């Protein structure tokens, strides 16, 4: 039981989820098999969801699992299935492309890590503390903010600070836009992916 007390569980779980996420992401990158890539992606995104839970945002984590993993990736797998041909095998990127990609990727990673660990205020941590009931983030608050009511910033209303008040509004407009956007996407994607006559061998466009 002291082992449980010794271990910084926060750290442990963070490393657990982080390593899974990063590792499987690397697996997506280096894998040649499209199906395996899909599977690795599922795992990576699942770990990401775990990270979300760890950070205290259960709702988003749940949404990640439901929508992302359960919807988008399934869609992706469907796509994989629909386009599975024997020609997959020969699709390999050349070495030159890999080199450039690696160089650029590492440059970017380096820059990002420098930024991430460079900002002082991000390096300081918060002492473990109790989360009050009122601080719990629940769906009511999220829903309220979506509808335009910023419950989390209510206490700032009396301050009368200009820069603070600007953030009082909610996400009603993006919510609506996203709804319409999804509708459009639905229709568009449905139209685009409809069954057509099989293309000829020469590959003319329809």
């Amino acid at each position, binding site marked *: 039981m002291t082992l449980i007390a010794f271990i910084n569980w926060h750290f442990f779980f963070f490393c657990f989820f982080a390593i899974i996420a990063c590792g499987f992401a690397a697996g997506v990158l280096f894998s040649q098999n499209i199906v395996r890539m899909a599977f690795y992606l599922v795992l990576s995104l699942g770990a990401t969801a775990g990270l979300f839970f760890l950070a205290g945002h259960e709702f988003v984590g749940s949404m990640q699992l439901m929508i992302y993993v359960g919807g988008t990736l399934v869609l992706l797998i469907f796509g994989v299935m629909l386009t599975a041909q024997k020609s997959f095998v020969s699709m390999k*990127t050349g070495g030159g*492309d890999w080199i*450039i990609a690696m160089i*650029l990727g590492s*440059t970017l990673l380096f820059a990002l890590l*420098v930024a991430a660990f460079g*900002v*002082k205020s991000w390096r300081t941590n918060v002492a473990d503390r109790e989360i009050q009931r009122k601080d719990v983030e629940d769906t009511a608050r999220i829903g309220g903010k979506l509808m335009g009511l910023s419950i989390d910033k209510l206490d700032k209303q009396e301050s009368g600070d200009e820069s603070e008040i600007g953030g009082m509004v909610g996400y009603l407009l993006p919510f609506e836009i996203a709804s319409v956007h999804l509708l459009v996407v639905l229709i568009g994607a449905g139209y685009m992916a409809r069954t057509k006559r099989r293309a000829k061998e020469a590959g003319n466009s329809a």
Partner: protein
Amino acid sequence: MENVELLLKWLLFVAVLLPLVSFFLILCAYPKLGTSLGSGAVISVGAIGGACILSFICLGIWLNHHPLHPHEADPKGDAAAIRIDRDDPSAGPDIRLVSLLQDDHGHEHKQETKHEHEGEGHAEGSAAEHHEAVKPYTGEYYVLGQFGRLRLSISYYIDALTICMFCMVTLIATCIHVYAVGYMHEELHDMTDHEVTMADGSHLKRPGRFFRFFQYLSLFSFSMLGLVLAGNIAMVFVFWELVGICSYFLIGFYVERKTASTAANKAFIVNRVGDFGMIIGLMAIWSGMGTFAFGDIDYNSDGHIRDTAAAVEVGMFSQVRPAGLHHSLEVPDGMLIAGVSEDFRDEVGMVYADHAGLDENAPREAIEPSRLNAESEIASRLRDNDKNNWGRFLLIIAGIGIFCGCVGKSAQFPLHVWLPDAMEGPTPVSALVHSATMVAAGVYLVGRFYPVFTPEVLLVIAVVGMITLFMAATIAITATDIKRVLAYSTISQLGYMMMALGVGGWLAGMTHLITHAFFKSLLFLCSGSVIHAVHTNEMPQMGGLLKKMPVTAITMLIGCLAIAGVSIPFVVGLSGYYSKDAILEQAWSFAGAHNPAWAWMFFFAGAGGAAITAFYMFRMWFMTFMGTPRDEHRYDHAHESPPVMYVPLIILATFAVGVAWNPGEHWFEGIVGGILVTVIFVLIGLRYRASAEGSSERGAATRQLINVAIGIGVVMTLLSVIWMAEPASNVVLTNLLKSARPAGTGHGFHEAFGGVMTWPSEHDIHTEAAFWPIKVPVTLLAFGTGIAGILLAGAIYWKGILSPRDISNQFKAAHRFLLNKWWIDELYDFCFVQPVHIVSRVISEIDKRVIDRLIDGLAAVVRRISSVWEYVADQTIVDGAVNLFASWMYSLGVALRGVQRGRLREYVMFIVMGTIAIFALFLLFSRSLI
């Protein structure tokens, strides 16, 4: 200013401006005027008709205020009573305040004064003027500018002569405008000019110029009326030139014909030669007299001279014929001073210094009295010592200069050559301009300027007139073009007028001017009617037209009779009889009045000229209207002119007959004349009907003609009966003109040229004592020569007793001499025209070879430079730069196109690279965060 003067002044002003308004109206409304007959011409005819009405209204006003006196006037006093009818409290003895009085003489007075006049020097102390004379109205409308002493203004000078000229000019002009409406009708539409041949042999087809003709006529009318109204010689000159340019336009109306345009040039240039002399005369007048005005002009224009003489501009006439000397000719002070010789310059300077205070910049009113005083003192001293007569010489120059202008304008020898060629213009132009008005302007000016002429100048005028009349009459004998005959006749008659004026017959000359205007314009219009009918000017192609054109024939006969001076001697005659006999009487009187023997040549030239005149006029009439037709084709097409053309003829014929009648003096003149005219018309009409071939329309026309003739005759008789009544009986041309005689000129000149020559007074021929010595021989001689000429012409050209060809063969040399117009044109061509052509050819060669070559060479050089430069600068540099730039852009575009390879993964790579770059930049520039 009296009401009369105000009324006359503005009425005549409006009458002058009406044709100008018509000119501008036609000019502006030209596109809108239709092609119907009445449209364009109505304005013009209306304007001149209005001017005519206004002129006659002014005549009525004038006669109302200045009633004419009959020839035998009751003598009102025998002493000289110079009435100064202006309030003049401050008129001192040394200020020559003048009021211009004019003469009106009575008979009996002549008898008393005649003895005193003859053989004496200046008419000092003798009774000269009497009666309240008619003072002409002068004044200014508008001052154009005053430069020191020179005052240029638009002014008027209205006396009986002005009004008479206005009436005559407007009446004749109205008749001619109406006539022209009919004559020029073929200009209303596109017409073919058969006298112009194009390069391919066809005739010229051009649009009609009806409106332009009436524009020119209106402008001419305005110019002529302005000339008559003018009150100073500068204004006369301006209108002189205007009349000249209108004549140029009108002669050159058929501008495409080379003959017409050449004739127009000739007219204008020859006139200019005369005007050169006129300008010299103007300069002499200006430098000597300091003024251009005819009469004395009151600056205040209200009829009152307030205080000093400086408010009055002393006109020319008063300077030359001062009232203090009973208006006899005297060299004015200014000319004496201007011509002063070197010896006296110091004296002049001393006198001016005596009248100190002469400051050039002071206003005129201040210095004028002193100046006048100084000048009169100088002049009185100089007059006694003026040995060289330079002052008088200046006056002579002035007179001859003005006369030069008249020589040019009135076609006297040697500047007569333009008038026959001026017949190229349409016939209404010849009638209006070259017979009645413009050429009469020269005579009018001589008449107006008469007081200023010294005896030397008068002699020159007489000689020139004599040469002209004789020469032109002889040339007219052989002319075959009907209008040429009339042109030479005009020149000859103008010579008569000049000669009359030269020998002292002012009244005779002016009367002949008026009567000549009527019958000469009548003759021209008739000839136009004939030309219109037979479409040719040449008399050898006419003949026998009496039957076809009776009205024209009869009116032309009346004109010929008038110009020949036919009459029943001592009883009644046509208008030409009175005026021509007056001229001959004056010439006879001049010859007999203590003058050397060569003074008879004036009379004999005049009488001979009368004979020749009668001959060639009737030659023309017989050749045209009598005998058998010489050209059947033209004869068949001949027809009488439309009424719009022959009604003016009838009106003018009426005036040609009766304008010089004097029923007050000879009660029968009106009645007998009227009856005679009626009888003649009826007789000829009956004869015409008798010889007419058949159709009832002809008969109806004949009856109409006879009715018209009877009507005219009856009207004339009635009018002459009315005319006999007392107040109207004095309204006679001669009385009217007599009241306009300039002051002092009625005396004539005595003891001129140091006592050698005498100009007799014009009254002498009207006295009872002069009846048998002067009037009877002259009348009989004139009658005889006239009848002789007519009979000779009839014998040759009507009855064919003598053959013209035989006569011309016998007098071959003379005939050729006359046929070639005395070779004067050829002489001028040799002396003047050819040298000018040679000089101009040389200069044009210089222009072509040297100047043009230089300029063309320069142009070629510039062109070459510009082409090189264009290549260098434009093509190479500018285009090259632009093209280079464009090619760079293109290459850049092509190069950039290579970026788009279509490879998705490369695009993603670029995105990533971009992201890295942004991030790196962000990191670099946000040190505060790190």
